[in-house]
């Protein structure tokens, strides 16, 4: 047994080298999720509310009203004829048409959100212009709830998806390649301990998953200012647990696959439904109620919910025990079946 640690170290090195020297693998694990986050983050970034456009109909008072309305934050005013104003309203280029006079008239659709807001703002501005004194001095304080942007939602989901993909493909693919290349057969003909072989895969996967998680935390913080509300340790622990769970699933899926075509078909079969259902890009609550229990039982849903819980809501790890349990069951049972029926040659 004295060479055992040595063999494990060699097996682990072998796993890590195989990954680190594969440029494609590095791209898919690190660069691709970052590009996805950039593209989606840009597409769904939070824009300030657009200014509401008010058409002021030409007349003696227009010259006084336009600058006054322009001065109101959130309004922009343009002078035009009444006909032009109505036309702009109809085309959605103006939210409201103001006909100045001693009794100002507003042409507006109060059933539309923009129209309703514009009406309130314009009336308020006109009243003030006429010298209304406010009896209350209301103070407004701006708030932006942390973790409420789309990118905040996206980052933990992308990480969950990334961990699933690299476990399935990184592990499953390697195993199938080793089987088709008869390397597995060659290995079991040596005194190599199968438990060490297995352990090297688990350790190798965990080292890589750790790098993936930390990479996500850092790039989310630097590029998108997504902050980790909960503890980093909990976040890493849950991520590693999820990664191992998917490792068990990967071993199961590829335990008997004799060629890479079968294996990639099986892995797609596992990962595609979860990519859609498990709340990677949009919330899983968009799906109908009858589907929810099934969605909740999926490992990727559990992982994504857990990662979001820690990252956005600062939940403690212990509060996430249901998610941990789901991941554990999804990892352990397939793993045990895989060990029992694994095809070495």
């Amino acid at each position, binding site marked *: 047994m004295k060479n055992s640690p040595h063999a494990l170290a*060699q*097996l682990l090195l072998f796993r890590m080298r*195989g990954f680190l*020297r594969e440029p494609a693998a590095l791209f898919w694990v690190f660069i691709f999720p970052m590009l996805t986050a950039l593209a989606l983050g840009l597409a769904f970034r939070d824009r300030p509310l657009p200014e509401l456009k008010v058409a002021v109909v030409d007349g003696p008072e227009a010259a006084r009203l336009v600058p006054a309305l322009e001065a109101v934050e959130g309004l922009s005013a343009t002078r035009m004829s009444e006909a032009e104003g109505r036309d702009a309203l109809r085309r959605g280029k103006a939210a409201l048409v103001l006909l100045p006079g001693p009794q100002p008239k507003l042409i507006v659709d109060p059933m539309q959100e923009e129209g309703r807001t514009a009406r309130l703002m314009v009336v308020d501005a006109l009243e003030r212009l006429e010298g209304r004194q406010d009896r209350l001095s209301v103070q407004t304080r701006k708030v932006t709830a942390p973790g409420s942007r789309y990118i905040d939602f996206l980052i933990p989901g992308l990480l969950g998806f990334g961990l699933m993909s690299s476990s399935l493909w990184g592990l499953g693919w390697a195993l199938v390649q080793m089987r088709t*290349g*008869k390397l597995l*057969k060659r290995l079991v*003909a*040596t*005194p190599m301990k199968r438990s060490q072989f297995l352990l090297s895969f688990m350790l190798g996967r965990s080292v890589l998953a750790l790098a993936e998680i930390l990479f996500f935390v850092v790039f989310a913080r630097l590029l998108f200012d997504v902050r980790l509300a909960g503890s980093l340790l909990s976040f890493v622990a849950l991520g590693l647990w999820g990664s191992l769970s998917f490792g068990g699933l990967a071993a199961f899926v590829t335990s008997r696959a004799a060629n890479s075509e079968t294996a990639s078909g099986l892995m797609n079969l596992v990962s595609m439904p979860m990519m859609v259902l498990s709340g990677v890009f949009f919330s899983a609550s968009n799906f109908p109620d009858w589907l929810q229990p099934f969605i909740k039982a999926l490992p990727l849903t559990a992982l994504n919910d857990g990662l979001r819980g820690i990252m956005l809501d600062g939940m403690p790890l212990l509060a996430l025990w249901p998610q941990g349990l789901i991941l554990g069951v999804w990892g352990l049972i397939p793993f045990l079946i895989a060990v029992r029926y694994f095809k070495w040659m």
Partner: protein
Amino acid sequence: MEPSPAPAPSPPALAIEVRGLVKRFEDVVAIAGTDFEVPMGQCVGLLGPNGAGKTTTVEILEGLQQPTSGEVRLLGMRWDKDAAELRERIGIALQETRFPDRISVEETVRLFRSFYRRGLSVEEAIALVRLEEKRDAYVMKLSGGQRQRLALAVALAADPELLFLDEPTTGLDPQSRRALWDVIEGLKGKGRTVVLTTHYMEEAQVLCDQVIIMDHGRIVAQGTPAELIASIGGEQVIEFATTPALPAEAFAEVPTLVASRPRGNGHTLSVKELHRALPGLLAITAARGVSLNHLSTHQATLDDVFLAFTGRSLREDAS
């Protein structure tokens, strides 16, 4: 044919003992009851076409497959009892192992060396197969011959007493093949027992002390290459064709004839003495008034032995 006694004067211990070996898959009989022994320090060649049962035999010896029935002993040990110890002491090169592309020669050997309690140093194993210049090269950069040598280095990492090489030179160019032969010759020099499967008769003739010819899961002939060639009677072979074709009986009177077989428009004759047989053959064709074409002669080889025992050419099947 009975196994011939080992040629060595002092009876060496047996490296391999096989008794009544049978292997059935579903409805196919891969090995139909074989017996053989390999003394320590010998190189034995398992010959036969694809599907003859060579690889199945070797994989049972390697502990990679279980026999349906029969007894196998390696170095006096059995797989069902001493598997761990046996794995320490045998070396294996499978018919084809694809080592990962982006792992270097040295790293591959080091990985495999780490599984064994004792053995060669990584440097020694690489030097044995003369891959020193490629030690830092990734597997993907190696030629076919270099990959086979890497597989051999991996097999030698434990400095095994017993070495199994399954078609180590298949698909190699002649130069790489000879380079690999040199390595195996070197191992024989160190007193290692080598079991080699091949469908190149020439390879067996050069390397093997003992040859076992298999066909349809049975041993059809066994002995030293010289014994086997002598056993078919004729030392020389004449191959020819005639137009028009003549029946075999026409050549029954060829002097020193041992056997004849039809071959295309002509025949293959095994004869003892070429200088007497050839004039006889020419006289017969002249008397019959047929024209002789494609006349050639060679010394009998293991190929002719195979042909004699199975009625088929090894090379035709082996393609």
